[in-house]
C-alpha cells in the first residue's frame, strides 16, 4: 500500500462526537472508500476532541482544509462522490454562521480562529493512538532535550520563569511546587497526574487525554527528572473509558519507543507511569483523598500539614498536578518560559482552556490567553446566547465557583479578577446562563451535587451542605423568611472557614456569589413568593390567555390532573388554579403560545 495519501480525513473521536454518531460515520466512510477504490489514497485519521462539540460529528479534510459538521452516516456516500472523486465540497454539511455565511474551511471558522492553542495544539490534529504523529509534531523533544542538555534545576527555573500556575483550580505556582518536591529529602519520590475531573460541565482534561495523551506522559517524565521521582501515577476516573484506553495505548507505545522505562535517552534517568482508575467520587479529586485512593484506601481527605511534598503517597514525598497543567509543560520547554510568560496578564500567565456550555451557541472547548474578556469568550468565540436571549450570568468553576453577572462581561478571565468577583477560574467550566435561569435554583443545583459528593468525614461539610440545600429548597418553594436568608449566609461562611478540605471550603461559593450579585432574586422568592425567571415551579401560576387560545384543547387532553376545562358554550379553555400541580405540561404542548407562565 502506498504511503503517500492524497487526502487526510480527520474524524473527531472525542466523546461528544462519538455520542452523536462518529463511529457510524467512520464505518460508513471506510465502506464507501473501499467501494470507490479510494482506500489507498485517502486516509482516515481518528483524532481527539477538536473543540466545537455542538457541531459534532466533525470531519475535516486536508489539504483542502474543508470542515464538515453534523455529518450523518447517510451523508457519507454523497460526500465521498462529491468531494473525494469530483473534488468539490459537499455543501449540505458545511457550517453556516449565524449571519448566513457558509464556512467552508477551518480558517473561516471564528470559533477556532479566535483561540490560542497551546494545551490543545495537537487535539483534533493528530491520531492519539499513534506515537509517530505526536513525535512528528515535536513530541518528546522537550524530554530528550531536558535529559541531555539541562540540569533538573534549569528545568524548574524554566517552569518558574513561565509563571505557569496550577490549572486544577487552586492556581498554585507550578515551578514552586516542583522546587518543593526537589528539595524534599528521600530516596523515593512520586509524581501524580490528577485526571479525576469531576466538575459538572468541565471536560478539558478528558479531551487532552483522549486527544493528545503522550503530551501528559512526556510532561510527567520531565517533572520526574526535575524533581527526582522515578514513578508517576495517573489517577483517572472510571467514567472516562476512552481516555483510559488511550492512556494505556500511549504508555505501551512510549515504553516501546524508549520514551518511558529504564535509562531514557541514554542517560541514567529512569521513569515509568502507572494508571490508577478511580471509582468516580468527586472528593477523590482533592489531593490527599486522591492519594488515599491510590493506596487502595477509602478516598477521604487528610489534614494538611503534612503536605504531600513532605509526606505523600505511601509516606514518600509526592507532588500532584492536574492534566492541563502538565499539558503546558512540553510547550514551555520547547519555546522557553519567557515565551509562555509573554501571554496572559501580569499574575496569570499563559492560556486557559474553558469548557463552554449552557445557553451558548457554540458549546465546546475554548483555549484563550489568560485575561481574555468574558465577552470575547461568550460572544466572540461562543457566538452569543442561544436564540439571542439576554445574557444573565456565567457560572465558572463548577460547584466550587461562582457567577459573573452581565455587568461584568468585560472582566478579564484570570485568577485575580475572578476571585475579586466572587467566582474562580477553577478547572475551567464556564456555563452561560440566560434570563430563563433562576439563580437560586442554580445555587441549589450545585449544592445538591455537593450533598451527594461530600465524603462525610467532617461535620461542617457533611451537615452544612445538607442544611444549606434544605434552606435553598424552602426558598425555591416560597416558604422561607428573611431570617432564613441570614441563617443561610452564616452557615455558608461557617462551612467556608471550618471544613477540612477544599470540597467543603468551596461548596458554599455558588450560594455566596449568587447572594452577592443576585440578592434581589432571593428576596423576590421570599418576600413576593415570585420566581423572576419563572423556573421554580412551586411559585408559578399557569393561565391561558383568552386572546391567543384557539380552543384546540391540546392542553386539556395533556393535563395529568384534568384541571383544564372550558365552560359549556365557551370556545376557550381555563386552568383551575386550586387543582393545578404546576407541572408545566400545558405550557409545553400549546402550539399558539397561549399558556402564560409567571
Amino acid at each position, binding site marked *: 500500500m*502506498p*504511503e*503517500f*495519501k*492524497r*487526502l*487526510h480525513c480527520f474524524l473527531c473521536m472525542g466523546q461528544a462526537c462519538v455520542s452523536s454518531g462518529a463511529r457510524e460515520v467512520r464505518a460508513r466512510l471506510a465502506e464507501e472508500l473501499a467501494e470507490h*477504490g479510494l482506500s*489507498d*489514497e485517502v486516509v482516515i485519521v481518528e483524532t481527539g476532541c477538536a473543540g466545537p462539540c455542538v457541531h459534532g460529528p466533525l470531519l475535516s479534510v*486536508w*489539504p*483542502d*482544509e474543508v470542515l464538515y459538521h453534523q455529518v450523518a452516516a447517510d451523508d457519507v456516500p454523497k460526500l465521498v462522490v462529491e468531494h*473525494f*472523486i*469530483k*473534488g*468539490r465540497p459537499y455543501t449540505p454539511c458545511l457550517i453556516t454562521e449565524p449571519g448566513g455565511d457558509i464556512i467552508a474551511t477551518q480558517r473561516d471558522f471564528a470559533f477556532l480562529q479566535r483561540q490560542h492553542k497551546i494545551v490543545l495544539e495537537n487535539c483534533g*490534529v*493528530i491520531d492519539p493512538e499513534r506515537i*509517530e*504523529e505526536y*513525535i*512528528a*509534531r*515535536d*513530541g*518528546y*523533544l522537550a524530554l*530528550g*532535550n531536558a535529559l*541531555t542538555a539541562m540540569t533538573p534545576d534549569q528545568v524548574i527555573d524554566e517552569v518558574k520563569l513561565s509563571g505557569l500556575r496550577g490549572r486544577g483550580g487552586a492556581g498554585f505556582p507550578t515551578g514552586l511546587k516542583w522546587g518543593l518536591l526537589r528539595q524534599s529529602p528521600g530516596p523515593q519520590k512520586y509524581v501524580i497526574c490528577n485526571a479525576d475531573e469531576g466538575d459538572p460541565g468541565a471536560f478539558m482534561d478528558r479531551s487532552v487525554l483522549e486527544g493528545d495523551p503522550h503530551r501528559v506522559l512526556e510532561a510527567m517524565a520531565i517533572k520526574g527528572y526535575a524533581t527526582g521521582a522515578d514513578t508517576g501515577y495517573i489517577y483517572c476516573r472510571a467514567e472516562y473509558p476512552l481516555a483510559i484506553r488511550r492512556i494505556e495505548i500511549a504508555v505501551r507505545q512510549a515504553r516501546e*519507543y*524508549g*520514551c518511558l522505562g529504564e535509562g531514557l*535517552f*541514554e542517560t541514567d534517568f529512569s521513569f515509568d507511569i502507572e494508571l490508577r482508575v478511580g471509582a468516580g467520587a468527586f472528593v477523590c479529586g482533592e489531593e490527599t483523598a486522591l492519594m488515599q485512593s491510590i493506596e487502595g484506601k477509602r478516598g477521604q481527605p487528610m489534614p494538611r500539614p503534612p503536605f504531600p511534598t513532605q509526606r505523600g503517597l505511601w509516606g514518600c514525598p509526592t507532588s500532584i498536578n492536574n492534566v492541563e497543567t502538565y499539558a503546558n509543560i512540553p510547550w514551555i520547554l520547547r519555546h522557553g518560559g519567557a515565551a509562555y510568560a509573554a501571554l496572559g496578564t501580569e499574575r496569570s500567565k499563559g492560556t486557559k482552556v474553558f469548557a463552554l456550555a449552557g445557553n451558548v451557541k457554540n458549546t465546546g472547548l475554548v483555549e484563550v490567553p489568560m485575561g481574555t474578556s468574558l465577552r470575547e469568550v461568550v460572544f466572540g468565540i461562543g457566538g452569543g446566547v442561544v436564540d439571542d436571549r439576554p445574557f444573565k450570568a456565567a457560572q465558572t468553576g463548577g460547584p466550587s465557583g461562582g457567577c459573573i453577572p452581565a455587568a461584568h462581561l468585560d472582566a478579564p478571565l484570570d485568577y485575580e479578577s475572578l476571585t475579586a468577583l466572587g467566582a474562580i477560574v477553577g478547572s475551567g467550566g464556564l456555563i452561560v446562563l440566560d434570563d430563563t435561569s433562576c439563580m437560586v435554583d442554580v445555587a441549589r443545583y450545585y449544592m445538591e451535587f455537593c450533598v451527594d459528593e461530600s465524603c462525610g468525614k467532617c461535620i461542617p461539610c457533611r451537615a452544612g451542605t445538607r442544611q444549606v440545600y434544605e434552606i435553598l429548597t424552602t426558598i425555591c418553594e416560597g416558604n422561607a423568611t428573611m431570617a432564613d436568608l441570614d441563617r443561610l449566609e452564616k452557615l455558608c461562611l461557617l462551612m467556608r472557614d471550618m471544613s477540612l478540605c477544599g470540597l467543603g471550603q468551596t461548596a458554599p461559593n455558588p450560594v455566596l456569589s449568587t447572594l452577592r450579585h443576585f440578592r434581589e432574586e432571593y428576596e423576590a422568592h421570599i418576600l413576593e413568593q415570585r420566581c423572576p425567571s419563572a423556573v421554580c415551579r412551586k411559585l408559578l401560576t399557569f393561565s391561558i390567555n383568552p386572546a391567543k387560545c384557539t380552543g384546540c384543547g391540546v392542553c386539556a387532553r395533556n393535563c395529568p390532573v384534568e384541571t383544564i376545562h372550558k365552560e359549556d358554550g365557551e370556545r376557550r379553555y381555563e386552568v383551575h388554579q386550586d387543582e393545578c400541580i404546576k407541572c408545566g405540561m400545558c405550557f409545553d404542548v400549546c402550539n399558539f403560545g397561549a399558556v402564560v407562565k409567571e
Partner: protein
Amino acid sequence: MNLDDLRRLREKAARELALRSEHRRFRVVVCMGTSGLAKGSREVMDALLAEVDRLELDDVEVVATGSSGVEDLEPIVTVEEGGETPVVYGQLDADAARRIITEHVVKGRKVTQYVIARRLPGEVS
C-alpha cells in the same frame, strides 16, 4: 533511543504528515468530472499518486476537481507552482502522468508534448 534517533524519527513522521500543513510547492489538480473519469482520469490519478509515493516527495499535493469543460482533451491535469503560471496538460495516460511528476515536478522541465495551455480558458490570470 537517543535524541538523534528521535530527531530522525521526527523527520520521517513529519513527511507523512506534511499534507496537513498549509503550504506545499506543487499542487497537481486532476479533472475528475464524468467525462474525465470516462476517458481515464482515474488511471492518471493512480499513476500520479504512485509516482509521488515512489519518489517520496513531500512538497506536492494531488487534488481532484470537477470537469474543465474541455471534454475532448480529457484527462486533464494542471500543475500549479506558487507564483508561476499554471501549466495545463491534456490527453494524458498513466505513462504521461508519471512523466509529469518525474520531469516537471522533480526536474522543473515541462513535458511539452502534452501541454495544451498555460491556465485553462476563462481563468483570470
